[in-house]
């Protein structure tokens, strides 16, 4: 799993880490029982305050996504599937940011949704994979 942080992103840094772990679970980069980098490793890699990493891991642990094996490190929970709940949490975050942005620009949600479909269709026409990839991901998640 590779994590990157964007200081200008409105989400706090620990939320960015949490979201990227979720995303890695959804796209299969992380799977059940996979080890996560230690707090120390990730802090050094990202040059981020180790407390930020701990906070992210605590949140993921609280949600049952990861667990700590004493003296061995942190691992993805054995029961984890890129399931509906993770997917929902991730989609929700993206949607929240889009809605906030729309409101700030004086736009209504219905016109935003219409435009998302339009943009996605154009994107697909141009040969980009996003929409079809999302749909494939969903099928896998449901299977």
């Amino acid at each position, binding site marked *: 799993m590779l994590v990157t*942080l964007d*200081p*200008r*992103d*409105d989400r*706090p*840094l620990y939320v960015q880490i949490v979201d990227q772990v979720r995303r890695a679970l959804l796209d299969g980069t992380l799977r059940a029982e996979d080890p996560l980098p*230690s*707090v*120390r490793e990730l*802090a*050094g*890699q*990202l*040059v*981020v*305050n*180790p*407390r*930020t*990493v701990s906070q992210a891991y605590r949140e993921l642990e609280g949600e049952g996504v990861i667990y700590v094996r004493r003296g061995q490190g942190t691992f993805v929970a054995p029961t984890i599937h890129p399931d509906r709940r993770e997917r929902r949490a991730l989609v929700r975050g993206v949607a929240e940011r889009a809605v906030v942005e729309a409101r*700030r*620009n*004086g736009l209504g949600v219905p016109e935003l949704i219409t435009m998302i479909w339009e943009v996605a269709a154009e994107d697909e026409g141009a040969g980009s994979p996003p929409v079809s990839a999302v749909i494939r991901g969903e099928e896998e998640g449901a299977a």
Partner: protein
Amino acid sequence: MTHTDPRDGGYAVATHGLSKRYGRESALERVDLRVPEEAVYVLVGVNGAGKSTLFKVLMNLERPDAGTAEVFGLDTGSAGPEVRVQVGYVPERQDAPYRSMTCARLLQHAAAFYPDWDHAYADHLIRALGVRLERRVGGLSKGETRRLQLVLALAYRPALLLLDEPTEGLDPVVRRRALALLAEHLADAPTTVLISTHHIDELESLADHVGVLRDGRLVAQMPREELQRTVRSYWLEVPDGWEAPVELQPTGLQRSSAGRDVRCTLVGEERDVSQRLAAAGARVRQVTKLALEDAALAFLPEDPS
């Protein structure tokens, strides 16, 4: 809640009304610094704002003219030695009393002085930072000196690190490695860090507290989250001849050629600021989070000159 007692538990460093003058120049002016234990506190300010003077007072290398400073509740003036063994200090300038010593000899010297010197960790740092042990201290370049100083400051895992421009003179690769070592260091042991830098962006994800020194005064001091929540960039649609309300401390004002669009940095909770803007006739188009450096700059307005 305001803490007025500098001996209050929970602060690794607390100064109370600290002032220092050099002749007619005021280097520090009634500074009430509060560095919570285990914080990574970044001190921001232009050259000559008083950052290095503050570090020197904490190390008892300078006597304040007024006020007091405490490190872990110990008065830095009367308990200098007790303070020093708990502090790893990287000074802005290298005073070189050991110029003729080799790096190896100086490190041995330091290891004998600090009971908690961790030899294995020191070796790790020496390798990671590429310190050449056979070199004489007096012959080191600025960057090599910095690397040696970082080993000297970190190797006994002091409870407090005072880092005055610790990455100055380091090339970008070593700079990044030094900061990564610092992040790992913090993960290994609870440590408080007070750090000054001209490169705030490199501390973007490490800092959790920010203080801004301007002409010797601490004009802002708060958790990083609070700074980035309350100092934001606003893109506004405004009527002709519109001026930003002064109480919002506008800085970095940019006006579109037609004059109807304005972008500026404003200080305050977003909801409150938006209400005031609406009352002042401006429509908020967009509000964006600022990088740590840009947010801190809101407290360092450019000289009109």
